[in-house]
């Protein structure tokens, strides 16, 4: 308190007012069980779902295998399918046996080894195998196609090696950096941490502040000497801390429970998360100031924050593959900048040029949200 500026009465008042506001908001957070629900229970649930429930990994898919005529060659090929760890095979003699199963989804594909296969194969007359897949789920359809092709290619290569008639071909050696086992959990769990922070930052904040507008307690606070800037800052500080706390909880669980590697630094993790919370909280305040109604705020938060964080951030779907207009929309989705950086902190390590850019853009978006929210709040006072 040696600084003369702090001893000036208006400054002392300002600090006291601000401390009182922060204390009020903190009590509100701690008292309301729903904040605990969203800051602790929901993150745990999401992490759990992405850790166990949602898996994009190759797993066993049920297919019907039709061997139209049993010879040693076709039996050998059928055995390769039965041994594959990607397929759970149901055997049959005629494709019609499986047509209804495919219609109702009991099998995902039908693999037919035609009656002429053995003869064509022996005579090298372009032997063919047919795969019928359920196109109503394109992912699973291409999965079944690709793996069926893989099984056949491996089988053919083995047969050729036995007869030593193998022609030299081009071998492809592929290496997946950062995640060699291709565990989808390793990139889903870091991504879901961004979703958790969106929930705390935007959904919870917009609900709480909208409730104050709805009940009229916001006007009551405005009647006090608090300025709009102080009011907003006081509102968000507890949620900022809550957001970081629930992020920390998630990271701890990701590493300890799910064994996701953490190769970057704690500093980078907190810098990125703190920068992300600025636009997330700004958006929450903006939504509540614009709607002043809990129902509208919750809907807007869902539509403008939660769903874009899920679908337009590169979390599940590649941004490059989207139509150009939608790619423009993703530019203002803060999670788009956080998710690749978080995945990098976890799986690759610190890549500061990438993080610096992400942090700068997130802060910029945040600043815009705050300015608009501040103007909106100030207008009410005047």
């Amino acid at each position, binding site marked *: 308190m040696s600084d003369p500026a702090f001893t000036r009465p208006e400054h002392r008042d300002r600090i006291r007012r601000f401390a009182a506001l922060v204390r009020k908001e903190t009590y509100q957070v701690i008292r309301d*069980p729903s904040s605990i629900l*969203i800051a602790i*229970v929901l993150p745990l*649930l999401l992490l759990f*779902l*992405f850790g*166990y*429930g949602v*898996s994009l*990994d190759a*797993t066993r898919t049920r297919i019907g295998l039709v061997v139209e005529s049993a010879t040693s060659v076709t039996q050998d090929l059928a055995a390769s399918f039965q041994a594959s760890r990607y397929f759970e095979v149901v055997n049959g003699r005629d494709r019609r046996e499986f047509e209804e199963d495919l*219609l*109702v*989804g009991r099998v*995902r594909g039908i693999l037919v080894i035609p009656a002429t296969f053995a003869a064509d*194969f022996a005579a090298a007359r*372009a032997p063919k*195998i*047919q795969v*019928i*897949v*359920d*196109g*109503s789920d*394109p992912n*699973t*359809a*291409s999965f079944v196609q690709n793996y*069926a092709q893989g099984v*056949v290619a491996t089988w053919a290569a083995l047969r050729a090696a036995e007869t030593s*008639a193998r*022609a*030299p*071909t081009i*071998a*492809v*050696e592929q290496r*997946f*950096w950062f995640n*060699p086992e291709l565990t*989808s959990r*390793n*990139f889903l769990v870091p991504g879901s941490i961004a979703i958790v922070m969106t929930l705390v930052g935007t959904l919870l904040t917009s*609900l709480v502040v909208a409730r104050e507008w709805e009940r009229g307690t916001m006007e009551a606070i405005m009647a006090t000497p608090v300025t709009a800037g102080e009011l907003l800052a006081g509102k968000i500080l507890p949620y900022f801390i809550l957001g970081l706390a629930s992020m920390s909880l998630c990271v701890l669980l990701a590493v300890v429970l799910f064994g996701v590697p953490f190769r970057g630094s704690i500093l980078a993790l907190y810098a990125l998360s703190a920068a992300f919370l600025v636009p997330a909280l700004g958006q929450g305040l903006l939504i509540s100031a614009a709607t002043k*109604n*809990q129902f*509208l705020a919750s*809907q807007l938060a*869902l539509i403008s924050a939660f769903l874009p964080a899920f*679908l337009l951030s590169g979390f599940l*779907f*590649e941004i*490059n*593959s*989207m139509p150009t207009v*939608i790619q423009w*929309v993703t530019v203002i989705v803060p999670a788009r900048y956080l998710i690749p950086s978080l995945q*990098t902190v976890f799986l690759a390590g610190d890549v500061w*040029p*990438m993080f610096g850019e992400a942090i700068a853009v997130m802060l910029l978006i945040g600043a815009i949200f705050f300015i608009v929210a501040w103007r909106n709040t100030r207008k009410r006072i005047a």
Partner: protein
Amino acid sequence: MWWTRLKALIVKELLAVLRDPRGRVILIVPPILQLLVFSYAATLEVKNVDIMVLNRDSGAWSNELIHRIDGAPTFRHILRAQHPEAVRDAIDMQQVIAAVQIGPTFSRDIEAGQPADIQIILDGRRSNASQIVAGYLNQIVMGLSADTPGGRRMAPAVVSVVARNWFNPNLIFQWFMVPNLVASIALLIGLIVTALSIARERELGTFDQLIVSPLRTHEILLGKLIPPMMIGLFHITIYILAAVYIFHVPLRGSLLLLYGGAVFYLAAVVGLGLFISAMSMTQQQAILGAFLFMVPAMLLSGFATPIENMPSWLQPVTLVNPLRYFLIIVKGVFLRDLPLSEVMANTLPLALIALCTLSAAAWLFRRRLE
């Protein structure tokens, strides 16, 4: 007599949601916007990605390979690297999703009829997309391999796999996505609208007035059940129209079956919403409670990943999820003309869920009355 009372309540409930012009807008515009944006955005195809090539070979075959990669629609730009450090940096910064390295003896090996090899480095942080990219690259290399002198000699002996896609021959992603979104967005809207209905009255104190009115418990429940179902059916109708006329998803099955399934689905969703609403004391709790149900319901419905891929201890949990059954009905009726017996088999669980949640909600009301 009871019908007049019920009608009054239904009108009141509809007014509560639709009176506010902003409320009307939020019930109509965003769901349609979502359908449009998400059905185009949510694609697991990979397009327009950049790729790096480190070519140490000076022969014709490596140029041919690069030429073919360049010609593939998947790849937008091909960046040339001069040394391995450039590859590392570009992958680290996610400037490229994959890098192809061609060794100095590539063309020589092919001409000499010896096994040649190339190396592909992929970004495992985006392991889903990079696996798809690896698949495309492998196909290009296989094509090249078949055109080499050695490959041409072997051609007749190569076993080919001929694929046929039923129900969706060109694997158009929107045909999958739009029916999925129809069911999910209806859940999103239905649950929130209902969850708020009782909680709002409690918060405003009008719930007590409702209780002392001549309405019986089951009438209150019906009055709370029917309006959100009307809103839900309205939404579903718009989505079906959009699916057929904007996205050109074929509607191969019976519309009647689809609506039959939708009525039970909405009853189940609204039942869940009322149950959540009856449990919560404030609107905020109701919204968060609805959310707490919605997120797992979406993730464990078979929408993003097939249910059979989930761990076996988690699969039984999906049995109480209404979205799971309605997804089968919507996708089935749209794309594959699902037979009546299958629609019934998936409607029955929906009816059961509706029955359980509505009775639970009624019990919670009555407990409140005493």
